[in-house]
């Protein structure tokens, strides 16, 4: 308990303050101090991607990010991406296309996909989608339906942009 620091993180639009040790990871602080349980911890070493969050819009492994690095920044989880009343196209597509089985990877998977879609001008290819989610392990689905869902969501987003 050597060096502690008070930090403020904006989680899904809500500023949250907490005191953290300098070596505490973002995933541990989110889950254990801020009750942000939708962020999962599957390995703690950056190998599985279950803990992926958007940090100022970019996908990061929150187990490889120190909590102090998130001080003053925006963290987005699946709860911030969309809600049942106002779902993100990725969330709708994951539900409708059978991309969810046990669901433990879903939160991280959706956020990595969101990061890809935010960076893509058009609809990314299936190979690009596979590359973008290659840091997110899934043991249930075999990935095919996840790629399907991301592709569908990308098309839906593009259609939305065009009609907007």
């Amino acid at each position, binding site marked *: 308990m050597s060096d502690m620091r008070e930090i403020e993180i904006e989680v899904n639009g809500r500023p949250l303050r907490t005191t953290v040790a300098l070596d505490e990871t973002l995933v541990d602080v989110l889950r254990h101090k801020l009750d942000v349980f939708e962020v999962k911890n599957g390995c703690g070493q950056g190998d599985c991607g279950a803990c992926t969050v958007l940090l100022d819009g970019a996908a990061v492994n929150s187990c490889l990010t120190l909590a102090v690095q998130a001080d003053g920044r925006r963290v987005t989880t699946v709860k911030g991406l969309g809600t049942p009343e106002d779902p993100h196209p990725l969330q709708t597509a994951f539900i409708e296309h059978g991309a969810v089985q046990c669901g433990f990877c879903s939160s991280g998977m959706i956020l990595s996909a969101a990061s890809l879609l935010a960076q893509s001008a058009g609809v990314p290819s299936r190979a690009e989608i596979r590359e973008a989610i*290659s840091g997110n392990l899934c*043991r249930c689905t*075999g990935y095919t339906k996840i790629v399907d869902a991301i592709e569908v969501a990308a098309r839906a987003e593009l259609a939305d942009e065009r009609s907007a």
Partner: protein
Amino acid sequence: MSAQGRQYRVIGRGVPRHDARDKVFGRTRYADDFVMPGTLHAKVLRSRYAAARIVSIDTSTAAAMPGVHAVLTARDVPHNETTSKFGQTHSAGGGFEGLYRVLADKKVRYLGEAVALVAAETLAQAEAAARAIDVTYDPQPGVFDPVTALEPGAYRVGEEDSNLVCAYKVRKGDVEAAFAQADVVVEGEYRVPFGDHVYLELESGTAWIDEDGVITIRASTQVIEHFRDVADILGLPHNRVRVIAPMVGGGFGGKEDITVEAYLALLARATGRPVRLTYTREESILAHSKRHPYVMRYRTGATADGRIVAMDVDMVSDAGGYPFLSPWVLLYSVVMATGPYIVPNLRVDARCALTNNTFTSAYRGFGAPQVCFAYESQMDELAEKLGLTPLELRLRNYLHTGDELGTGYALESAVLTDETARHAWQALGEPTAPRSPHEVIGRGIASGMQSYGRLVYLHDSSRAFVGFELDGSVVVRSGVQDIGGGQASSIAQITAEVLGVPMDDITVYFGDTALTPLAGTTTATRMLYMSGNATLKAARAVRRAVAGKAGELLGVDPDRIDLVDRTARVEGDDQKSLPIVDVVRACASDGIPISDLAQFNAPFRDLEESDCVVGQIHPDYTFGTHAAEVAVDTLTGKVTVLKLVASFDVGQSINKLSAQGQLEGGTVTGVGYALLEDVKMDQGRTVTGALDTYLVPTAADLPDVQAVMLESGGGKGPFGAKGIGEPSSTSGAPAVANAIADAIGVRLKQLPFTPERVLTALKERERSAAPVASER
């Protein structure tokens, strides 16, 4: 009128699963997403040796450390040694149940075996205290190879005189005479590695003592019925322990054994406080069961026209330090040793040995994938020798309904292996052209046979409650564990079909030994078969009551009542109908039950006194075929999977998306087995102890999986469904293996096919024979 015999309204449709919504919006609370006020944190101290005697354990320093509330060793466990159970309600006997030891006592049998438990205010304090426990070990030589372990004079892993866990044999016909008549014989030794399940959700749980003094454990498990084991360990009546399984983040067999439950219960009782325990990934890989490595020797003989006449199989599996499910797994391997083929003359000999490796137990496929790799390699070798295509050889030998397995059991249900194989091969389409001069392309198929439902010796049963509420909504209660296959959603879908209400009107309560009728385990590809049938039975009973009352109210024969869209309609009379809710209220007013608790029993049989495995062993089997196309880089040995097809008879899909999802996911499990996954152990020490060394397939490693789903309607599950969870994986690895052999012209006999192994095989081939063809 029942729903059978007509077009289904909900069954077979790819409706969104009811759990998917909560999962994508981050609302699902898995085992570790749950906090009780005043919770303590637990840590398990694990053995640093694979084989050692425990000379002494001094916990005094640890117990005095700040924040520490309990430090427990074997002597603190009321019943430290029990019989390992896996949710069964009938003791099969015959050596199926071995020793379960909660904490190591006097001797450690594998590295990572639990030695002591700590509970403290913070996780850091618990970890520090665990480190401060002083264990004096006397290291022993150990034994790490199952074949060596069975030799006379081998180091004794346990307390028994022998390391033999079990031995089985099958005898049919006259094997030697048949081999003498065979025109071709192929022979090989095949090896498969340890595997880790790598479910994304780590082992986790919280235990507390509720206001009535009941020890309550909320944990990630495939078997809530370990509550009996926990009660036995604590010396409590079974009704004083409750286990709740929330949504589980993957199981694949690894959460069939007890994991954190007993530790949590012991610590909660010792401290009187809620206690939480979640493994780290390294701890998970070190401490939970592995898939069994096997050494298998196969010899298969066939006539010149491609009929198999005999098979001779010998296999040895590695149980690791404790038996757990090893005897069951080996029995599966023995029964399915010949796969989906007619083998008129058969000899199978199988043994399983204790070693000082990490213990092995259930893993998707449960002994079937190991032998499938061996027999499907043999089939391709036979085809090559006979000048037949792999498909043609298989078509000449597949089992059909009515044909006998090696044990003498005649298949009762639909068998569409021929069709699955033809579809699988066809779905590969046009061959892909090599992308470079040093790339070769190959294709392979592999068919598999896999049981669904548990061993008939276990007298398996499942229960479900289905009932209307007074507003017309529906409640289903069943103690299923939902491990991601849509287990809970599927029973809602069955209920929706029978009661004519939308899925959204149904709430499913699942996975709670105190509040949901016990439904058995989510293992053995049994949940849809068992609990689906129990739900169907209960829903039909409710339907009879509602249709009876509707018929009375509408003045027609109840057989003419159809329940659809929340309405009781009269067939052939559009004018007459009633809202179901009105009928339900009328039933309630008249004292007619609007709910039912039903039990479904699988076929039962007792273990016979015989030195051979004979007769029916499983309720039924699922058949299917995988096909793969691969590219092999002959410079690096790297294998790229270009196409994957899973073609299976699922009987009847309940949820089309979920069934396809099983086919796709299971296939990729097979690809991991073929190319990547290998828990390497060196003298019992896990070398691949994290996910940067134990590699599993990523999205970038794979093509899409084409799922070809056939629906014979001929299964024993609800609406004729067959189980698909494990079968979907069994033949995946050999399909890839056969594709690689087709590409490089050399057959590798040890999984996984790493670039190093492929390259070594290529070099050996170069030295001994003609160069590899650069195109096909």
